[in-house]
């Protein structure tokens, strides 16, 4: 399994052609208390960079852009009752959706963990 990061603070774990997407711990810290996650519809076909989900905090709504193109296969239903999972466990239990990748070559433009760390430090 390989983890990649975007400049918009999404992470994607890739195993074969299946990706799991969430927002980074840094991002949840910036957003504050998450109150609601608007998840994409399963079965939807999306393109890299599309706004597919919205994460709400009390005073902000942040669009989540898919790091890769493909078809949404599953969403984290647990977030409906416990949106705070994105705060407490952003990079594991607070995942947002799973996606079947249609073009693995897109991942090449994303950051690895070290690059993302440097990127965050530069902000």
């Amino acid at each position: 399994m390989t983890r990649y990061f975007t400049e918009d603070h999404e992470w994607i774990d890739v195993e074969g052609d299946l990706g799991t997407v969430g927002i980074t711990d840094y991002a949840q810290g910036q957003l504050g208390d998450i109150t609601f996650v608007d998840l994409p519809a399963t079965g939807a076909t999306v393109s890299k960079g599309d706004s597919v989900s919205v994460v709400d905090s009390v005073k902000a709504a942040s669009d989540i852009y898919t790091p890769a193109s493909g078809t949404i296969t599953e969403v984290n239903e647990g977030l409906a009752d416990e949106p705070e999972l994105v705060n407490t466990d952003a990079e594991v239990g607070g995942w947002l959706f799973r996606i079947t990748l249609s073009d693995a070559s897109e991942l090449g433009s994303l950051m690895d963990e070290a690059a993302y760390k440097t990127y965050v430090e530069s902000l």
Partner: protein
Amino acid sequence: MSAVNAAGWKPTMGETGEGGPAMQTASGDYGLMLEEALIFELGSADKSGVDIDAPERAPAAGLAKFLRKGAPALPGLTEPEAVRHYTRLSRQNYAIDLGPFPLGSCTMKHNPRLNEKMARLPGFADVHPMQPQSTVEGALEVIEQLADWLITLTGMASVAMSPKAGAHGELCGLLCIRAALDARGEQRDVVLVPESAHGTNPATAAFAGFKVESIPATPDGRVDVEALKAKLGPNVAGVMITNPNTCGLFEPEMKAIGDAVHAAGGYVYCDGANFNAIVGKVRPGDLGVDAMHINLHKTFSTPHGGGGPGAGPVVLSEALAPFAPLPFVTRGADGSIHLVEEENRGEGHAQAFGRMVAFHGQMGMFTRALTYILSHGADGLRQVAEDAVLNANYVLRSCEDVLPAPFAKSGPCMHEALFSDAGLAEGFSTLDIAKGLIDEGFHPMTVYFPLVVKGAMLVEPTETESKAGLDRFIASLRSLAERAKAGDQSLHSAPHFAPRRRLDETQAARKPVLVWQD
């Protein structure tokens, strides 16, 4: 660090953990600090404060299958109970009538009571919107007289009176622009909005079917005119500019912006939220504006009522006037007043883009606004703008040594003074100052807006504050700034002396409870 209360009296009731256990009363009330239950806890469905005669006949047989099963589960109260319930609740509100309400961009000025009295004359308050015209000549004349004042004060060609609030007026203006473009046979789908704009501007543009492109601000808080010009082109329908802008500054290049937009085939929408600063001093029509809404509840003192109703007539240039929505009141050459509706739109208003409301708009606000305008007259309105600007600059110059004023160096402000929270102690921000003001007995200023200034505090005193009132406010604001610089932890838990401490907004949003459950 200055004292919390200059008078030397520091209530401790309700403060736990700061000065020992709170004193408890058996009732839960503390003197004049009164708690109040919900009507669902107080009333019952068979209680009533209205005496109604028994119906003279039973429901018609045909109605049988539609009848409600049992009375609605709505709690009732007798009149004394109801009066007490709402009076007690009212005392948990801050209001202009209690003290300064310096919300930037909101123009919380005194609401003259004559306005209320006039709006309640039966000839205005008890008139149906679809009575025959011969029985509502006076109502139509109110609309026409107010329209005439708004046109003259803004130097525009026409005004659409029906929009119900500022955002509705914005929508009306943008729909006029869409209709004008349609009439020209042009498909322009982009509206330019400065990043400092109020959120309604982009929301309205999107609602009207436009794509929004943002224009940056210059370091001195104005629209970046060059960036704006660079974006103009055949796809640009227009721009939405707030002037005076949300930083409390006049846009000196307004005319040049208008000329450039017009040369590129677009229209200029001006957000008139801040018209109070310039009423009687400048006419937007002289600056190339094509459409501008006027918040009657700001500049013309109709009450905010805890969040509406507002009123948002839109003044229009010659180019946009033909597209104003129905219904529309006009005055003929002979002085007679005509109401144009769908059935007679052919009489000079055939290009109207449609209808935005069921009836004539906010008539109750028109009577109040006209009363206010007649009270002030041309001279008084000019004085309103001058005093509003004077009061704001007085606050600006009286506080800029303790709170950074990011644009103060570039000159005077208009009707509102903008500060930032830079320079407070680590961990202290605008929110602490705002909540501290509540303990000082004031309503906070507008906070975290405009977005272009970090930790923004936008103070709009309005012209109806006395100098003595301003001096008290300034003393409190200075004291709070000093306490926040000194790291006074008690600010983090402010307010201490309001009906409620800080409320848990996260819980409210995560698990919304929007209705009472028995």
